[in-house]
């Protein structure tokens, strides 16, 4: 399957720190690619570099065959990439509705699509006119997801969506991601929870010290406990 997103030898410096050391990663079109690795491995930096929030100091990033590493963040977003940051970054002074109005860049929100989103995240309908700052952590994550889904995007970059969330909400997020993928979107997802990664990942990249040290299918990684131990310092059994 062709790659929608390709990172070749991507380097990133933040101030005087050299964070990414030649990241090589391919994200196949229409699939969910999990980016795994220990804390500080460079996963979040990789997503932020793709979005242009931190500039790549070397290498190249191609999206749909076109280089995007020199583009501004708004241009990258307009190329069809949605971003759900680790911090969720909902606009707390704006209502749920206003957050989504802003995310609907092309114009007005589509009611059918909105109903589809409400199906996964009913609290957003309930708190439609409430300020986002008053939502719980899980509801903010739902809003952050909804913001990236309110218009179709070719690629979604999602950073640790399940961190600190209740199992029921994680279930809703997983269902949502599966449906989004079924509708044809490509997803690159950073995740620490290996159970979640196993549930939705098709392919996987494992990072360590600013490099991708393993790339392959999720099925391979799930089947090989020794590889899990070596790459992630865990086995699936201990993370049931």
């Amino acid at each position: 399957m062709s790659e929608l997103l390709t990172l070749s030898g991507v380097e990133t410096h933040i101030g005087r720190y050299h964070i990414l050391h030649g990241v090589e990663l391919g994200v196949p079109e229409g699939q969910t690619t999990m980016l795994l690795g220990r804390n500080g491995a460079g996963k979040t930096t990789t997503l932020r570099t793709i979005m242009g929030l931190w500039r790549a100091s070397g290498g190249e990033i191609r999206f749909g065959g076109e280089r995007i590493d020199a583009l501004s963040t708004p241009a990258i977003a307009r190329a069809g990439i949605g971003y759900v940051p680790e911090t969720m970054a909902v606009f707390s002074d704006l209502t749920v509705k206003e957050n989504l109005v802003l995310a609907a860049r092309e114009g007005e929100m589509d009611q059918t699509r909105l109903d589809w989103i409400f199906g996964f995240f009913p609290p957003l309908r309930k708190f439609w006119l409430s300020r986002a700052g008053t939502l719980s952590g899980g509801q903010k994550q739902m809003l952050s997801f909804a913001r990236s889904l309110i218009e179709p995007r070719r690629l979604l970059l999602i950073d640790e969506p399940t961190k600190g969330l209740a199992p029921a909400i994680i279930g809703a997020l997983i269902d949502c991601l599966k449906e989004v993928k079924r509708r044809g979107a490509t997803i690159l997802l950073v995740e620490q929870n290996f159970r979640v990664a196993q549930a939705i990942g098709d392919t996987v990249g494992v990072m360590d010290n600013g490099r991708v040290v393993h790339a392959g299918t999720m099925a391979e990684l799930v089947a090989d406990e020794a590889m899990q131990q070596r790459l992630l310092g865990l086995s699936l059994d201990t993370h049931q």
Partner: protein
Amino acid sequence: MSAQGTDGDTDAGAALPKTPRDYLPLLLPVALALAALPFVPSTSTWVTLTIAGLAMGMMIFVMASGLTLIFGLMDVLNFGHGAFIAIGAYMATLVLIPLAAWMQADSVWLNLAAVVPAVLFAMAVTGALGLAFERIVIMPVYGQHLKQILITMGGMIVAEQMLYAFFGPQQIPLPLPTSLRGSFQFGEAAIEKYRVVCVLVGLAVFLAMLAILNRSKIGLLIRAGVENTEMVEALGYRITRLFVGVFMAGSALAGLGGVMWALYREQVNAAMGGELLVLVFIVVIIGGLGSVTGCFIGALLVALATNYAGFLVPKLALVTDILLMVAVLLWRPRGLYPVTSR
């Protein structure tokens, strides 16, 4: 199908819970005015002081409203904001002095024919200078607060000295147009016509800003950008264009405030920007950085307190604004309506 039009587009519609609003700060100016009433010897004096305070507050608000947006959205400490106040006033003199005959005519229309172009010219020049200031002076120091303070303070000193160089060190008299002179008499209370105009203009600016911020997508972008510029960009919006637009609008409003203040004092001098800047910063801090409503209430509080104190305890009037700021920050350390997390 659209889901953007009204608040009730979703199935649950109007029955959905809204966030409770924090109305307490809105009551503060009213509480302050009522608290002063027993100490003022007569009701007519209290009315005069209150209207004078409201007019002064509206002028300060017009000057400060741009600064709070600039700080909130762009995280820029613009100590050069005072320069736009003074430049606005001087630009108005360029139009009003040649049209002095129209200003002194008994016709309201001739007065307006002089004042309106003067205000528009002042706002256009300060807006354009704001654009140049943002591109040349501010842009290289985004995210560097210490450098921002130094360079914008330097920019204000340069602007002030240039005003001295071009217009001379003397104060320039700027008399009010004839139709705005004098007072309305309500019983024993005399209310100056110009102060009523200031209240109306300030209210119009406030309502227009609220309408733009709450009812338009540009307003949503500004409010979102005040909170998280990075995420606004990640949604696909070019925040730098918004920065430029807000800076220009903020500078133009400072210019408008400068014209209002100059007509209120009936004279212009190059130091007026620096003198007003302290007051403007106090108002922005009291209101909560980035909040237009907070800025509005803060301006009214500062002006009312200064007027009452000036009448009741004149020596206290020198420090009223500082004391007020301390009191508000002890109650709400991030100001009345903080918007940014900074």
